């Protein structure tokens, strides 16, 4: 298996180099036969990467501890599920997983472009994809192979970090990688468009699904990371502004900006330079994020430490960044457009200012992440920049963004007339003012929390106004009842309404984030059996302690009776787990979720006489973070579900919808 894995990796690398050589020959000699051969070579790269990945999975499954990577991330007692997913638990395996994902995506692009071989851009798209792949395969083959052997065979492996033995951690890295790697495709199309001068919006239309799906996967990866932190780390939060978290969040912000302005280019053929800048920047930031995680330049709770790969990534980053800048500068005169915006009061303008805020957020997060390094260079002091800084700086920016999210649908394309604005604003503003009065009357006084709730109400009101006007129009035209017209409206105009649903998800998340951060209640105490700790309207009574063994862990489980306002609600079990081979026990979170609030309990310590230290928190509205993020992701997916080819003759309404579906 080791030989199969190493050889497959090597062959994948050689075939990638071969494909690049064939593409270059095809371009230079203007001979399609070379390009057709390069397509076969790229398919072979994918096949060899699948073989290498299968070999690594088999090595984990068979406890082949002579392989250094397997010995470092698995042991005999590890459940098979985690053994298989330990594939991407460490730096080497995750690089192979990255290459595999890129291989599969490249194969999909090669297949999708089978009818586009005559286009001048197609070979360049292949060349960029193969170029990026060659970098990762070079690292795997010559710097950091997961198939490296130890010079002895250990009796057992070191095991997987207990904190990674969580279902959320199984899906978090692959979805994040899918997001990162997916952005290689629009980047490749953008580069090909600039090299060949085919700068119309066709590259955007062809990559739209890739853009949105990569954005969706990056979002899922970030959310799963947050969900894992919430249920596994035991500190009661889901986002710590850690450098590695920021490394995924920054490209997501820039990609969000790109998705918005891509719509403008598709509709108005403006902002062509800007879109090139954004997609190059998004790709550069995905590589930069990977560099941060693997270089060890910043301290983070979950980076890979100093892996020795930092220099390679920095070099690759420089090539991509300066190459991108050069191509944009070279294509600038062709990319410039003479189309105009007709008014400040237009949807295009709000998109532009929404871009400014998104980039300001990305910039502030990047600055905060790198500031310890910057400070060390200029002052000699490596200061710390963590949660409080990011919350202070980014919260007002996020609130601006939410405001623009609400304003955008109220503005028409091109130019909003005063009458139109008045008509569009009346209901959302009325709802918002009413909501603000109710919130104030309910005792909410914190400036940011009150503002966040008010702005969320405003955005929800504007979105529902969109749903209402759309449904009313459909009822009028088709005669369908509203309950049928509404889902048909969403389905038939899914690109447009998918966007609104994604926005709805974002504001639901804002409500959850605001509630859980501004109104959190906490309590901690040490209890003997029968004693009670109170937090908010809850009381927890320590009843009993049980000890048992499950899989690769010894579990101490405290049984707690839960009361709310004196009324019994049942029991919760708070656990401390001692994993085989682990130095420290882990604390398992005990959670009671509801739409209103989460009761979040951890047991940091167990005393000699089985007295327990208990930490309890009430996190209001927290479940809305997960509901909102799910809605956001579903909105994104809905927006890219392809349309079936339309029949030649269709009803008037369907045609009108098709034209309006943006």
């Amino acid at each position, binding site marked *: 298996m080791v030989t199969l894995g190493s050889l497959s990796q090597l062959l994948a690398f050689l075939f990638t180099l071969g494909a690049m050589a064939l593409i270059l020959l095809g371009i230079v000699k203007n001979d399609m036969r070379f390009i057709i051969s390069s397509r076969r070579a790229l398919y072979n790269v994918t096949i060899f990467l699948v073989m290498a990945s299968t070999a690594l999975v088999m090595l984990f499954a068979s406890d082949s501890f002579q392989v250094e990577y397997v010995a470092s991330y698995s042991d005999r007692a590890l459940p098979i599920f985690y053994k298989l997913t330990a594939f991407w638990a460490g730096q080497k395996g995750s690089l192979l997983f990255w290459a595999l994902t890129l291989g599969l995506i490249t194969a999909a692009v090669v297949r999708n472009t089978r009818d586009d071989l005559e286009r001048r851009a197609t070979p360049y798209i292949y060349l960029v994809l193969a170029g990026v792949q060659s970098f990762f395969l070079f690292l795997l083959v010559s710097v950091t192979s997961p198939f490296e052997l130890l010079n002895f065979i250990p009796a057992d492996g070191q095991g997987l970090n207990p904190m990674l033995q969580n279902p959320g951690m199984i899906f978090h890295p692959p979805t994040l990688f899918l997001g990162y790697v997916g952005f290689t495709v629009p980047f490749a199309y953008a580069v090909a468009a600039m090299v060949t001068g085919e700068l119309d919006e066709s590259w955007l239309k062809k990559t739209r699904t890739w853009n949105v799906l990569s954005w969706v996967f990056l979002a899922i990866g970030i959310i799963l990371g947050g969900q894992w932190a919430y249920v596994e780390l035991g*500190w009661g*939060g889901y986002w710590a502004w*850690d450098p590695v978290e920021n490394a995924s969040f920054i490209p997501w912000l820039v990609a969000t900006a790109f998705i918005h302005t891509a719509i403008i280019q598709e509709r108005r053929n403006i902002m062509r330079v800007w879109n090139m800048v954004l997609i190059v920047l998004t790709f550069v930031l995905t590589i930069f994020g990977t560099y941060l995680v693997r270089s060890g330049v910043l301290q983070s709770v979950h980076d890979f430490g100093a892996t020795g790969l930092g220099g390679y990534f920095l070099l690759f980053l420089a090539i991509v960044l300066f190459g991108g800048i050069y191509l944009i500068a070279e294509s600038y005169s062709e990319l410039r457009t003479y189309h105009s915006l007709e008014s400040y009061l237009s949807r295009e303008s709000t998109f*532009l200012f929404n871009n400014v805020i998104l980039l300001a957020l990305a910039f502030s997060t990047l600055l905060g992440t790198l500031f310890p390094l910057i400070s060390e260079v200029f002052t000699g002091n490596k200061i*710390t920049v963590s949660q409080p*800084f990011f919350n202070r700086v980014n919260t007002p920016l996020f609130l601006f963004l939410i405001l623009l999210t609400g304003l955008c649908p109220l503005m028409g394309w091109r130019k909003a007339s005063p009458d139109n604005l008045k008509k569009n604003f009346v209901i959302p503003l009325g709802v918002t003012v009413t909501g603000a009065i109710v919130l104030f009357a309910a005792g909410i006084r914190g400036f940011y929390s009150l503002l966040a709730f008010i702005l969320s*109400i405003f955005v929800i009101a504007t979105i529902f106004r969109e749903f209402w006007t759309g449904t009313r129009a459909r009822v009028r035209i088709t005669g369908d009842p509203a309950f049928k017209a509404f889902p048909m409206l969403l389905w038939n105009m899914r690109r447009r309404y998918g966007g609104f649903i994604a926005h709805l998800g974002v504001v639901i998340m804002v409500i959850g984030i605001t*509630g859980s951060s501004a*109104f959190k209640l906490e309590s901690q105490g040490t209890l003997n059996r029968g004693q009670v700790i109170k937090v908010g309207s809850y009381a927890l009574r320590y009843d009993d302690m049980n000890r048992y063994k499950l899989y690769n862990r010894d579990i101490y489980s405290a049984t707690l009776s839960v009361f709310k306002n004196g009324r019994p609600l049942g029991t919760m079990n708070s656990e401390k787990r001692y994993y085989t081979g682990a130095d420290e026990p882990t604390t398992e979170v005990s959670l009671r979720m509801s739409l209103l609030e989460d009761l979040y309990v951890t047991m940091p310590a167990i005393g000699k006489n089985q007295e327990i230290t208990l930490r309890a928190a009430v996190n*209001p509205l927290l479940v809305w973070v997960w509901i909102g993020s799910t809605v956001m992701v579903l909105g994104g997916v809905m927006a890219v579900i392809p349309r079936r080819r339309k029949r030649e003759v269709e009803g008037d309404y369907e045609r009108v919808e098709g034209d309006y579906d943006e």
Partner: protein
Amino acid sequence: MMIMVIMLVPAAGYSITTSEIEAELMCTCGCTMVLNTCKCGTSDQMRSSISGMIAKGMTKDEIIEWHVAKHSETVLAAPTRRGFNLIAYIGPWVGLLFGAGIAVVFVRRWTSSDEFEDEFDEDYLNEDHALSDDIQRKIDSELEQIEEG
């Protein structure tokens, strides 16, 4: 419904709590985690020492200053707002103003680009005039027929 949900959330009262101070300090064990997120032995000691200080009547600022005196500024979870650190706080806003300024300039330029409207038909400029291969072929064959005819 959302408003009703929000209404049910209790309003927060104000008093110094351990967690409020924990959110401002880093754990000193080297884990790079903010104190309120860390669960190691060092963080437990820091927490109990903070609780003791609150019980003695020390203010939030006094407790934080005590920790800075003991561990240096690296114990702070956010940089102080003075000296070189101001760049971190002002930078994003300068970036925002700069970006907004550029956006305003572009929007103004675009909204007042009448010279192009005079010279070109805007709808014509909005359209994609590249001919597809099929259409080009059709035109060519029709031209051939005209010439032959």
